[in-house]
């Protein structure tokens, strides 16, 4: 039996789609405040050939607990499995690893957005007695300042090439015209020009926009790891050899300080 932990999210539907290919499926969830250690104990107590979850924050956390409780290996963010052989994601998806997963039950999470979603079907709510381990005490809603980076249809991002915090005025203007979220590279957050919440990449936000506009960003693999969920990428860069162009669908070779305001002006012009 393949035990799958599900949430009510899209990633869980993808995990179910993947797990169905492995055998008979038993989908489970929990009620009450999230308590990772207690929930993992309940998962670990089930008699399963494999325990699977989405490669989400919760899925990865729960399976790591199960691995620790059962003293079994856990493979995070798997994209394919064949017997003992798993292919999993490294470097936020910039590299794949083929590995042999020893141990039973097989413990794995499914890399987000690599599998088709499936109907989740029947879900059993497991009992997880409070064991005194840390749990969510309260949830504080954050006042959302504009479009969320993760869900935005368009993201306009700036990198080192923008030059300063003030330099982002032209990025913000274009984003405003497109109803887009503003993003940035890590160089920008490290310099304190923008908050980390704006960072796109492996250790920032992974976006899923229809269009990503990257201005003055070189295209480091760790940046692309967050940008490649976008359907189309438009890169603006002075350097025709910039690695970003190898990930881009459209290229403007030029100085963003001229190109970006020109795009804004043209947008205003065509809109009258």
């Amino acid at each position, binding site marked *: 039996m393949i035990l799958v932990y599900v949430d009510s999210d899209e990633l869980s539907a993808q995990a179910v789609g993947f797990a169905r290919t492995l055998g008979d499926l038993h989908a489970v969830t929990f009620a009450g405040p999230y308590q990772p250690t207690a929930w993992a104990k309940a998962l670990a107590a089930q008699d399963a050939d494999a325990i699977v979850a989405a490669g989400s924050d919760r899925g990865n956390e729960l399976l790591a*607990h199960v*691995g620790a409780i059962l003293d079994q290996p856990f493979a995070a963010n798997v994209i394919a499995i064949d017997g003992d052989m798993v292919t999993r994601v490294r470097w936020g998806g910039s590299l794949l690893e083929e590995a042999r997963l020893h141990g039973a039950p097989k413990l794995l999470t499914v890399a987000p957005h690599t599998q088709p979603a499936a109907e989740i079907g029947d879900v059993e709510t497991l009992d997880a007695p409070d064991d005194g381990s840390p749990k969510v005490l309260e949830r504080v809603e954050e006042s959302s300042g504009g479009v969320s980076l993760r869900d935005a249809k368009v993201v306009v991002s700036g990198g080192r090439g923008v030059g300063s915090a003030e330099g982002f005025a032209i990025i913000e203007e274009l984003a405003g015209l497109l109803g887009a979220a503003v993003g940035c590279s890590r160089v920008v957050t490290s310099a304190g020009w923008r908050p980390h919440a704006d960072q796109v990449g492996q250790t920032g936000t992974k976006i899923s926009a229809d269009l990503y506009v990257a201005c003055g960003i070189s295209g480091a693999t760790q940046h692309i790891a967050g940008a490649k969920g976008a359907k189309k990428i438009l*890169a603006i860069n002075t350097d025709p050899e910039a690695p970003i162009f190898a990930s881009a669908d459209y290229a403007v070779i030029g100085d963003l300080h001229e190109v970006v305001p020109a795009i804004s002006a043209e947008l205003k012009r065509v809109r009258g």
Partner: protein
Amino acid sequence: MRTLVCVKRVPMTGGKMVLTADGQALETKHLGFTISPHEECAVEEAVRIGGEVVVLTLGPAEAEEQLRDCMAIGADRGILLKTSEEWDAQSTAGAIVDAIRGEEAFDLILFGNESADAAGFQVGIRVAHALGLPVVTGLKKIEVGEGRVRCERDVGGARDVYEAPLPAVLTVLEGLNLPRYPSVPGRLRAKSKPLAVVEPARPEQKLEKLRLVVPEGQGKQAEVLEDAAQVVAVMQSLGVA
């Protein structure tokens, strides 16, 4: 207050992933090395919390460089678990646990939520279970109080609040703080801070890496747009303008 921070040496890859001929590792001949941004934030947080800060890594002899970088921003001493082999997450956690048992007890043990390269999302959690300590992961805010720690985790538009008694294991994310750049005097001081070197023996590997593969899709041919009018035309064709 005594805090241990665990960090992992990883190559600073640029615009492209290049593998060695045998597909076993990244080609690092022309690359520098660093630690994950998550771990940089863990070190910065430990230094801000104050008290004794110890940094630990399991890695090759050269990983001393990363420990010295951490000492340059304020860690007091380092522990290098020196090895020339690759360890899976289970055995990495085991080696860290052994090292912790050999030390006076820590109040806080900090990890990155996931490493920059292998990203197993698990070493901190395994260490917590082995030591019987509470663990909270993926944190962007930590407040140490009297015998307790209050912490917050982003959950897309909201923050979940947790509390744990000390000692505790916490894993953190970039954005927790803005790490300082090491100063020149900080770098000089780091050179003479104590570093203990231990050579642990590697147990049998249960998640056994066979080879690495660069995914397809690197190397698109971008269509060059000549002016703003062409850019706006593309935006219109994509339905976003």
